[in-house]
C-alpha cells in the first residue's frame, strides 16, 4: 500500500505532533508514503474566500504532481483534505474548467488522482481488525470526545466518507485503540476556524463551548483531526476558561498521537510534549504512560 503524502503547511510547523505519529503509525501498519513532489499549499480558506480560480489552481498543481507519480493523495489535515478533494471533484466534472486550470498551472492534469484522509484510510482501507491486532497498550479507561470539526465530513453528498451530523469513524478508530469514546452533541460544530487571528472573540466563544460540553459529557481529552481545531481549542483554552469562569484543563490531542500510543510506538513518535494543556499528568494517572518518560 503506497500513497502520495501531502503533509500540508501546518504539519511541518505548528502541528508536527500530528505529522510524526501519523507517519510512524502508518509505517507500523505497512503503509508506504512518498511525498507529493514539490507540493504547494492547498490555499485553505483564504484562497476560496478570495478567488475561486485560485482555489482550484493551487490544489491542481499538487494533484498533477501526484498523478505523475502514479499515486493517490493522502493527507492528515482536514483543511487540505477538504480543499484538495473538492477542487479535484470540480476539475474532474468540468472539462472546460480543467482545461483552463491546466493552462494556468502549466500542467496536463487528467483528473486521475484520488484524495484520501488518514481517518478514511485507517477505517476503510486498513480496517479496525488490523488496527486492533496491533494494539499493545489499550487506552483503557480513557474517555475521549472525538471531534470531527467542519471539514472532515461536511461535503456534498457524493463526497462524504461518514455520516454528516453524527459521524462515527473517528470514535470507532479510538475504540479500536481501546479508548472509550463519549457520546456528545458537538462533534461537528465549528471551532471558529480561520478567524483565529482576525476575530478572536468568535474563536474563544466557539472553542470554549466545545470544550465545556465535552467536559460535561465526561471526556478526559478531546481528540482532533485538524491542526486549526487543535490550535483553537488548545491555544485559546485559558481565554475560554476566563470567559466561562470555569476551569477546563482538557488536553486536546491529535487522534494519531493516541493511536500511536496504543500501538506502543516510541515516545519521540508520540510527541506528547507539544500540547499547551499538558496531557501527561492525566495519562500517567490513567496508567497509560510512565512518569518521566514523556517529560
Amino acid at each position, binding site marked *: 500500500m503506497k500513497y502520495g503524502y501531502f503533509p500540508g503547511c501546518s504539519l511541518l510547523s505548528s502541528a508536527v505532533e500530528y505529522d510524526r505519529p501519523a507517519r510512524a503509525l502508518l509505517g507500523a501498519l505497512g503503509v508506504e508514503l512518498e511525498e507529493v513532489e514539490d507540493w504547494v499549499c492547498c490555499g485553505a480558506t483564504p484562497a476560496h474566500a478570495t478567488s475561486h480560480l485560485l482555489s482550484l489552481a493551487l490544489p491542481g498543481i499538487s494533484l498533477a504532481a501526484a498523478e505523475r507519480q502514479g499515486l493517490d493523495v493522502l493527507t492528515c489535515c482536514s483543511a487540505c483534505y477538504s480543499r484538495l478533494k473538492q477542487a479535484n471533484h470540480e476539475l474532474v466534472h468540468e472539462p472546460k474548467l480543467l482545461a483552463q486550470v491546466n493552462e494556468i498551472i502549466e500542467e496536463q492534469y487528467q483528473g486521475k488522482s484520488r484524495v484520501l484522509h488518514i481517518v478514511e484510510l485507517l477505517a476503510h482501507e486498513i480496517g479496525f481488525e488490523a488496527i486492533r491486532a496491533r494494539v499493545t497498550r489499550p487506552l483503557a479507561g480513557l474517555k475521549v470526545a472525538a471531534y470531527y470539526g*467542519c471539514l472532515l465530513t461536511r461535503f456534498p453528498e457524493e463526497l462524504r466518507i461518514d455520516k454528516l451530523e453524527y459521524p462515527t469513524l473517528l470514535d470507532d478508530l479510538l475504540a479500536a485503540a481501546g479508548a472509550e469514546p463519549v457520546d456528545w452533541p458537538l462533534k461537528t460544530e465549528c471551532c471558529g*476556524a480561520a478567524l483565529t487571528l*482576525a*476575530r478572536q472573540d468568535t474563536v474563544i466563544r466557539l472553542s470554549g463551548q466545545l470544550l465545556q460540553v465535552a467536559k460535561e459529557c465526561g471526556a478526559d481529552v478531546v481528540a482532533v483531526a485538524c491542526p486549526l481545531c487543535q490550535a483553537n481549542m488548545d491555544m485559546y483554552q485559558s481565554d475560554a476558561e476566563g470567559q466561562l469562569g470555569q476551569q477546563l484543563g482538557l488536553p486536546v490531542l491529535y487522534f494519531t498521537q493516541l493511536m500511536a500510543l496504543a500501538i506502543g510506538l516510541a515516545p519521540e513518535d508520540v510527541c506528547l510534549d507539544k500540547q499547551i494543556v499538558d496531557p501527561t499528568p492525566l495519562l500517567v494517572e490513567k496508567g497509560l504512560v510512565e512518569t518521566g518518560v514523556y517529560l
Partner: protein
Amino acid sequence: MKWDLSDKALNSEFRHAVEARSGQGLSTCCQCGKCSGGCPVMPDLDLSPNRVLRLVQLGLEDEALRNETVWCCVACGTCNTRCPMNVDIVRVMDTLRAMAHRRGVEPPATAARVWAFYRSFLDCVEEFGRLGEIALMGSYNINSGRLLTNMVKAPWFFLKGKVALSPHKIKKIDRLQRVFRRVAEIESR
C-alpha cells in the same frame, strides 16, 4: 432590521450577476432560515445568512455587499449541508466577498481584519509556495495594524519547538508566481 424598498426598483441585474458568478440559483431560496439556525458565527455578526440571500434576491446591492456576514463567514459549510434547496451558500458568500472587493466596497471596521488575514496568508504562499506560520503572523500584524496580536501566544510556539522560522520554499516557485499573476489577470477582466 428594516429596509426601505419604496424608492428602489428591484435590481435583478445584481441577482443575475451573483447567480452567474456563483453558479447558484438564488430564486430557489425559500427563506426557511435553516442556514441561519446552524450558523456558528451568526451570534457575533450583523446579518443572518438567509437575510443576506434575501438582499440579493431583492437586488439591494449595497446592503448585500456591505455587511459583516459576507466578510466573516468561516465557510464551515453547515448551511450548505442543511439547505433544503441545495444552495451552496458558502459559494454565494465567497462570490459576494470577491464582488465587494472588486467594487471597492470597504468592509465594516469589525470585519476589515479578515481580509488582511487572507491577504497575508496568500502573500506568503505566493512568495514561498507554502505557509510559514511565523511569517504569516508577522505580515498579518503589519497588514491589520494590530502589531501585538497573538504575541502572548508566540512564546508557546518557540518553547514547544513547533515553529519553523521561515517556510520551506518550493522548487518551482517561478511557475507558482506565474500562476498567481495569471489568475489575477483573468479575474481583473
